[in-house]
């Protein structure tokens, strides 16, 4: 994947086509670039895209809505509508178009119709949830999302979103539950592990913090450079040491674990920014890190 921002207005036709294809396949959200590429390069001769044309129209349409270029989106929808009159996929784009213009009622009616026509397609229900969130109706969004998950219980994307929404509502127990569902489908994803650990740590209480520590350790195993997980270990161990109902054995174990993590944090700072580069800042960081240690 190209990380730097290129000037997409001057690339060749073939190159632009390849780039669009790549983004489409990996579902990259590079809307501005897609629109740029379409307007400057590909729209010069749409017909030479042949079979790809319709999927490109769809991609450009969504990207255009993302950049609130409703004129361009309208163009794409019209072209697609001419080609596939009565297609539900085009209808969905149309609904998204109304969504982007803030005509929620119209969009919702279309989605309603689409869901009755094909109730097994999760995409329409998810669009509805997205629409509620777009209007800032978080609680209603949660309700709709839960309803969606009752039917499509293994939809980890939806669980992830639900977890985020519960976090925004500070409902940590439910957020943790949703995050656990996500984790069930991707048990080795260190970011999810760490997120769940964060939630558990925030929930507080000895049991939760113990679990949080376990998850931080695991996240670190899958991603050894995860500084945040290291800090998590230190913090949760420190919390546990301060808890009243901990046996001396356990206490010692937590202290060693915290010390080991701290050592690794220091090591990491040294390797990223050697002392010579900026002595003052370095010593400040080291001071702060050492300050976290419990004796």
């Amino acid at each position: 994947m190209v990380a730097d921002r290129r000037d997409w207005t001057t690339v060749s036709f073939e190159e632009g086509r390849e780039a669009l294809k790549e983004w489409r396949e990996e579902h990259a959200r590079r809307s501005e670039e897609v629109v740029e590429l379409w307007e400057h390069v590909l729209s010069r001769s749409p017909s030479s895209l042949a079979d790809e044309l319709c999927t490109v129209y769809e991609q450009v349409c969504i990207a255009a809505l993302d950049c609130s270029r409703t004129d361009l989106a309208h163009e794409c929808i019209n072209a697609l509508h001419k080609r596939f009159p009565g297609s539900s996929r085009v209808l969905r784009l149309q609904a998204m178009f109304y969504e982007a213009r803030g005509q929620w009622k119209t969009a919702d009616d279309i989605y309603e119709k689409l869901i009755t026509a094909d109730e097994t397609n999760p995409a329409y229900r998810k669009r509805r949830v997205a629409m509620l969130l777009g209007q800032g109706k978080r609680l209603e969004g949660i309700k709709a999302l839960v309803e969606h998950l009752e039917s499509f219980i293994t939809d980890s994307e939806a669980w992830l979103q639900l977890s985020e929404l519960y976090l925004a509502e500070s409902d940590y127990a439910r957020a943790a539950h949703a995050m656990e569902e996500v984790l069930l489908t991707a048990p080795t994803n260190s970011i999810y592990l760490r997120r769940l650990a964060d939630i558990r740590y925030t929930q507080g209480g000895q049991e939760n913090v113990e679990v949080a520590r376990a998850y931080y350790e695991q996240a670190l195993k899958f991603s050894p450079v995860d500084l945040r997980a290291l800090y998590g270990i230190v913090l949760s161990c420190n919390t546990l040491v301060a808890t009243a109902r901990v046996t001396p054995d356990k206490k010692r174990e937590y202290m060693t674990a915290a010390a080991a993590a701290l050592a690794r944090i220091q090591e990491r700072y040294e390797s990223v920014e050697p002392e010579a580069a900026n002595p003052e800042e370095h010593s400040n960081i080291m001071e702060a890190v050492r300050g976290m240690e419990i004796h």
Partner: protein
Amino acid sequence: MTDLLLDPSIRTWVFLPIVIITFMIGVARHYVSLIITNKKRTKLEGVIDAAYLLRSRLLRENGRILPKNSYWMRKNSLVNDEHGYLSVAMNRAGRGGAPNPMDPETLTEMLKGNILNMVPMIFVGGWINWTFSGFVTTRVPFPLTLRFKPMLQRGIDLVSLDAAWVSSASWYFLCVFGLRSIYTLVLGEENVADQSKMMEDQMASPAGMAPPDPKAAFKNEWEALSMHSHHFAFN
């Protein structure tokens, strides 16, 4: 022994027409089937059931990454005697169970499949056999043993004819089975023109393509999950 010489008009009026007719019929089959078979509509219940089965399997496989509480909560929601999803689905009558074979919808589907399968096989095969019978059309470029005679020389009972010669009826069957890659080339991957594939499908499932019984799947999953023991992996 002098070699057999075939009349060039056999090539023009028997050999090539058989190839072309077989091919055209395959293409026609493809389009006719596109017209008369309607898309299978999946029911929402089916999707939900599949999702729950998948979740139960995931819980068994990855459950060890969850702490005890979370694991038991989920397990209970699936296998609880009174309202666990799997237990309920297991004992559910009606929409569970194998689809009724007398259901008119299933019957029409079967009929359509049969028409698509049998009509070309019987009528076209018979017609070709009748119209082009008795010709020696071509020869395979390698020697064969006598045992191949009934396969390659259907319709010609000549004891002295070398086994490498192919009769018109046999040539038809060779075309039926050998045109698959050409269909793929012309019609794309997902075509139904090829009869041999359909036959293979039928051979593969001798029970007559009965779809798996959802009730049994739930029962298996219920048993597996009930037996599953849990250890938190990160302790």
